[in-house]
């Protein structure tokens, strides 16, 4: 689910607009304002990309970076502009807590190992390699049927888990690869977007820059 919101800053910008020639009060200034807001949202995601490594220490998937790339600034509307973020999961975090239930299956598959992270049970790499298990008689999981990795013995990567062919694999059989859950709850996280007052401040600065540029051109939009 993508996220979009409209930005309306009439109260802050109107006094400035009233002081300008009418040619400067059109959609152009809204585009500049919207771009400032989009820029700040993108910067927020970029900061999260650098500040939030995977909490398990697993190889990163670049989720926040992709969120930054997916920020767009569509056409202005009557009050301001609407900005959208196409990356799945952002809306669920912002509007949380959000209950997430499976749509195309009976359970959600939650990665339980670094090899599972960023994959799905239907991924070709797991084809024929997983089997259902009740862990502790209580929790549903997909576990590895056979060994699928080895532990590097020496060198700079000593101790690391690496993929291995069936002939060379020495570890992994019985390891939990995915937890199967009927639902999960994603907690609310308002830090996925910048604070409203910061967006407004950036928008006002952009409006001022736009006006200055227009005045430098002789007051024409």
């Amino acid at each position, binding site marked *: 689910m*993508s996220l979009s919101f409209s930005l309306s800053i009439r109260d802050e910008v109107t006094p400035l607009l009233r002081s300008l020639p009418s040619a400067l009060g059109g959609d152009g200034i809204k*585009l500049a304002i919207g*771009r400032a807001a989009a820029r700040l949202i993108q910067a927020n995601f970029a900061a999260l990309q650098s500040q939030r490594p995977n909490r398990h220490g697993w190889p990163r998937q*670049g989720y926040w970076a992709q969120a930054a*790339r997916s920020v767009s600034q569509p056409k202005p509307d009557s009050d301001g502009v609407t900005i959208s973020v196409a990356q799945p999961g952002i809306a669920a975090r912002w509007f949380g807590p959000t209950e997430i239930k499976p749509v195309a299956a009976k359970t959600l598959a939650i990665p339980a190992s670094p090899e599972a992270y960023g994959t799905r049970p239907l991924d*070709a790499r797991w084809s024929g390699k997983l089997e259902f298990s009740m862990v502790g008689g209580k929790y549903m999981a997909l576990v590895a049927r056979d060994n699928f990795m080895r532990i590097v013995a020496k060198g700079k990567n000593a101790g690391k888990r690496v993929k291995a062919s069936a002939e060379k694999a020495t570890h992994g059989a019985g390891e939990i690869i995915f937890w199967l859950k009927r639902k999960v709850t994603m907690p609310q996280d308002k830090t996925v977007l910048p604070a409203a007052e910061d967006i407004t401040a950036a928008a006002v600065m952009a409006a001022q820059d736009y006006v200055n540029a227009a005045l430098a051109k002789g007051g024409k939009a």
Partner: protein
Amino acid sequence: MNFSRPVLFEEAIRLNAIKTALPTTLTSRQLAALSADIKRRAQFSARVAEAEYLDQISGTIADMLSGKTSLATGRVQLQQALREFMPALNPDGGVTDITSNARLDLILRTQTEMAYGYGQTVQGNDPDVVAAFPCTELYRLEDRKDPRDWEARWRVAAQVAGDNDAQRVLAETGRMIARKDSGIWQALGDGAGGYTDTLGNPYPPFAFNSGMWTRDISRSEALELGLIEPQTIVKSADLPDFNQSLQVSYQFRSDAIRAALLQRGDVKFIDGILVPE
């Protein structure tokens, strides 16, 4: 802020939609030698001769761009589509194996990033946006184990483009910032300096799996950096115009690409599949 119905990233989706499927047996290296314009207009993957599978790639990317699906789910969709064409899958293969996760991820990531990069650059070059944000900064969005030397690439691209200000700002601040109408952006995409991993576009990601992206620089900051003067009018960049392509028929786009490719003399079509001459 008021939250409303989702709005699609139109420019990115439009770029993905106009691409013509181009089945081919050419290798990645051979494909890299094609012109950037052909690469923008054609949807292809090295050594993939199935047009239907290429259309599936395009559809999956469209779903990713609209937020309907993630990279992991998109990969599974393509693997399932591939099962129709290839009886044996080798998911543990490297990038050269067209069924491997690494290869599929590279295809999906590169195509979606190119679409996003194009969309953001088109929006960023609207004349009204340029007025408030006349410059762009190239920065590292994602870390890499072995990062490429983008500052070295920047220096060469600035030299090729004749953008002395871009060189100066890098030397003074350590930041890669240039005007939106500078030729440095196309030079970066062209691999100025002999780099062969670039995508031929004047917008990010500039090269395969680069981890680099761009962000706007405000007029105020551009003045402080000396990239513009108070009276400077920065023009919008001269970007490839895809709007005309949206008006023509699918057949015409195919014929146009076919004619452009055959002019090269080193490729030909056999039963609709692009192969080396």
